[in-house]
């Protein structure tokens, strides 16, 4: 089909060649996974600070694959978190209210910190549950 | 004695003009002028680099005629010219420089270095440092009328001999003729057959000419020394002779510096233009050839080359006439590798051949000319300057080369087509 007749103009994205950084990242992941197993020590890699271009990130994502868990946090703009095909390796993306990428990280852990409910909040939970129950009971009587 | 160190410095202040200021402002000490100077190329001694010959004058120019220079002098950054500086300069400006002007041809910023050396000599002479040999020559020239000291009587004797030989009447002090002929001392001393040759040539060409008892030689040691006042006295004699005899054309003989003195420097040193024209003898012969008044027969078959005298060819501008004449009388004329304006100096000019101390140096630098000649494997070297001829002959003798040296006029005369036997 003659490209000029296309109804919409498809922005051609020239894939930049990969820089080979992915190999380094994979080795770092391996090292920290072993640490996680041995001593339960968690680790975070900040992708924005590494000189990875888009092709590198795409290659890394394809290599690691998609796992079973994908979570979306709505925290003043979304945060998309999913576990990669390799258990214990989580891919985290934080966005601000107008979908601007703020930070992109890989966390090597059983479960990313940000997902866990913090003990302080849980302490608050008992207090709130009691209130809930009271409201619920009074609602019924009325 | 009016010559002194102060007078020397004073004269240098007088001679420095705009061109010299421009030259000193532009010299970048690149060293290229040494490559053109036989005194460097043949000795490999960097002290002979041409621009070094005028270092004292450069300092005077800088210290006297530029604010930057005056400031540097005040701050003690540039030291004044001392008497010893001038004394050391004599070796560079006189003994190892024939003022051949080849350095001025190659200077990238276009400095006329020989123009400056010529001025430097003025300062040295005013300081009484001119070589003794040149001073004596100047005295002889003024007192006897001839650089070598040949009085008029000698010339008269030679004229009589030539008249007898050629049967042609040769005039002395005859007014209203076409040409006033001047000779050079070397011709009178060694190559006086030139008188007969010229008599025949002029006769065939139907041209009238005369000698003058007031001025029979054109040699000018004043110019060599750089004593423009003495040079002026010598020129004035010739001018007086020409004016008294009411002659419109003066012939400068087969001599390099004579042509330079009478043709180019004369009017400027005496301070007024001539009422007559000046020609080099070869220019005259070529003109006659052109007018068909000079016919020759026969042809030199063996290989001939021509040595262009620096003052006449490069600095005087006489380049083509000698070639026309040579091609007329020779079928095997071969140009030297560097010829005409780029020719290498024979090493004897500029007064160098009169300075004993410069003898060994002169011999050494002749190598350049020897190579030029040997390269061509010629039997004869022709030239049109008596000093060159002398120096060439000496050089050939010292290097026992079997090459003969000929004056161009003489060569032409040998082939002169004579209409009728006298």
């Amino acid at each position: 089909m003659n490209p000029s007749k296309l109804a919409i103009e498809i922005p051609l994205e020239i894939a930049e060649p990969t820089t080979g950084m992915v190999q380094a990242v994979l080795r770092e992941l391996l090292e920290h996974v072993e640490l996680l197993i041995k001593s339960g020590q968690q680790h975070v890699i900040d992708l924005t600070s590494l000189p990875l271009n888009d092709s590198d990130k795409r290659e890394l994502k394809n290599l690691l694959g998609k796992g079973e868990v994908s979570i979306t946090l709505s925290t003043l703009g979304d945060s998309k978190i999913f576990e990669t095909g390799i258990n214990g390796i989580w891919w985290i993306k934080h966005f601000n209210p107008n979908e601007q990428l703020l930070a992109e990280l890989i966390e090597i852990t059983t479960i990313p910190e940000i997902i866990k409910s913090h003990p302080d909040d849980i302490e608050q939970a008992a207090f709130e549950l009691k209130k809930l129950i009271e409201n619920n009971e009074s609602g019924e009587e009325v | 004695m009016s010559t002194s160190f102060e007078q020397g410095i004073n004269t240098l202040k007088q001679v420095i003009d705009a061109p010299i200021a421009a030259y000193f402002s532009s010299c970048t000490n690149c060293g290229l002028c040494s490559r053109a100077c036989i005194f460097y190329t043949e000795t490999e001694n960097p002290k002979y680099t041409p621009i070094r010959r005028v270092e004292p004058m450069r300092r005077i120019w800088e210290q006297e005629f530029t604010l930057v220079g005056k400031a540097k002098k005040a701050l003690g950054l540039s030291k004044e010219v001392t008497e010893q500086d001038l004394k050391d300069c004599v070796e560079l400006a006189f003994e190892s420089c024939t003022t051949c002007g080849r350095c001025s041809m190659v200077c990238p910023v276009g400095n006329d270095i020989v123009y400056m050396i010529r001025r430097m000599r003025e300062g040295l002479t005013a300081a009484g440092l001119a070589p003794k040999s040149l001073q004596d020559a100047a005295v002889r020239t003024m007192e006897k009328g001839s650089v070598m000291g040949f009085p008029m009587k000698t010339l008269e004797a030679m004229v009589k001999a030539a008249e007898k030989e050629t049967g042609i009447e040769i005039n002395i002090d005859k007014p209203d003729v076409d040409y006033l002929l001047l000779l050079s001392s070397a011709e009178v001393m060694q190559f006086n057959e030139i008188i007969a040759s010229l008599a025949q040539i002029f006769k065939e060409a139907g041209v009238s000419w005369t000698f003058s008892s007031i001025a029979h030689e054109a040699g000018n040691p004043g110019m060599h020394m750089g004593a423009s006042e003495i040079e002026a006295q010598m020129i004035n004699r010739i001018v007086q002779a020409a004016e008294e005899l009411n002659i419109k054309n003066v012939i400068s003989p087969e001599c390099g510096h004579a042509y330079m003195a009478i043709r180019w420097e004369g009017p400027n040193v005496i301070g007024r233009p001539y009422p007559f024209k000046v020609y080099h003898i070869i220019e005259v012969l070529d003109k006659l050839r052109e007018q068909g008044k000079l016919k020759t027969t026969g042809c030199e078959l063996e290989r001939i080359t021509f040595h262009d005298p620096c003052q006449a060819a490069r600095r005087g501008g006489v380049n083509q006439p000698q070639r026309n004449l040579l091609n007329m009388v020779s079928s095997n004329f071969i140009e030297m590798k560097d010829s005409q304006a780029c020719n290498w100096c024979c090493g004897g000019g500029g007064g160098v051949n009169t300075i004993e101390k410069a003898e060994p140096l002169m011999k050494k630098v002749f190598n350049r000319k020897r190579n030029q000649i040997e390269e061509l494997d010629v039997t004869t070297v022709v030239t049109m300057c008596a000093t060159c001829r002398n120096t060439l002959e000496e050089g050939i003798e010292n290097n026992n080369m079997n090459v003969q040296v000929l004056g161009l006029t003489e060569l032409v005369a040998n082939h002169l087509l004579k209409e009728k036997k006298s």
Partner: protein
Amino acid sequence: MSDNRQQLAGELQRHGISRRTFLKFCTSMASAMALTPAAAAEMAEKLVKIKRQSVIWLSFQECTGCTESITRADKPSLESLIFDFISLDYHHTLQAASGDAAELAREQAMHDNAGKYILVVDGSIPLKDGGVYSTIAGMTNLDMLKQVAKGAAAIVAIGSCAAFGGLPKASPNPTGAVSVSDIIHDKPIINIPGCPPIPVVMTGVLAHVLTFGIPELDDMGRPKAFYGDTIHDRCYRRPFYDRGEFAKSFDDDGARKGWCLYELGCKGPTTHNACATVKWNNGTSFPIQSGHGCLGCSEPDFWDAGGFYKAISTGIGKPGQWATGALAAGAAAGLASAYLNKVTKSKAEKDHQEVTLEDMGGKHE
């Protein structure tokens, strides 16, 4: 939970900011400042624990652009979260109190947190005529700055005016404006230049000050995290510069192709700031991306750097105008020197003694 943390946690709750939002804020701040991810967690820990830091914001000769930039009056955003960690005890634009009450609040804050509060300054300080050109409550900026600075733990000069003197200092600088660091020499000063600075840079630096103290500064007191590189170093149009492809006017095809704006006066190469990476308006764009050259607003005296639309390689002011004057002066000096030369020449002429034959050893005529 200690009342302190509770007080802050409750505070966060009250603003409808969950812990996870707060964690995300710290992570993005750390990433922006190229700190290690671990620092983010540490930052979160510290921010939660600290008692709210007292901050006194003094505004001198300024246009409130910096305050506008940091408070992002349009809508609350992650950046403005910082205000939840500091107690802004004095800001004459934002605070409700005014007149004596405002000044009393400031003195109170200075007294309560003597030696511990952070002094934030925006705007330059006039010195001419005793500093009368800008006063607050009858007190000149100069005196107020000196007074408040005495008890400050650290000073943050926000905006090019406070950092380097900015627009008020532009020649002829009628009010004798100077920067904070020209006056105060005995306190750690962090300069956050820019006209205005980028919001995330300000909040990032404040967050860093609150958690890790003074960030690493360059020789002009600017945090290296944000001012280490020049715009040019991180500019996406850099390949065009290297290939020498420059836009000749703002609407020629070179400009449309996004070529380098060097010839249109871009000061990117000599301007240290984070615009090219952090960008403006929440990462939307920055001057060069929108087709206009960088003005160099985070550098001292950028108002006097020779015109925003003249390349860096041009002269400031008109060197040409000097040439004609110098030519005339040179000619005049030339004539004077020429006269001196003429004098030297004529003297030499006069002193000249003719060189005669006698000098050559000849007989007297």
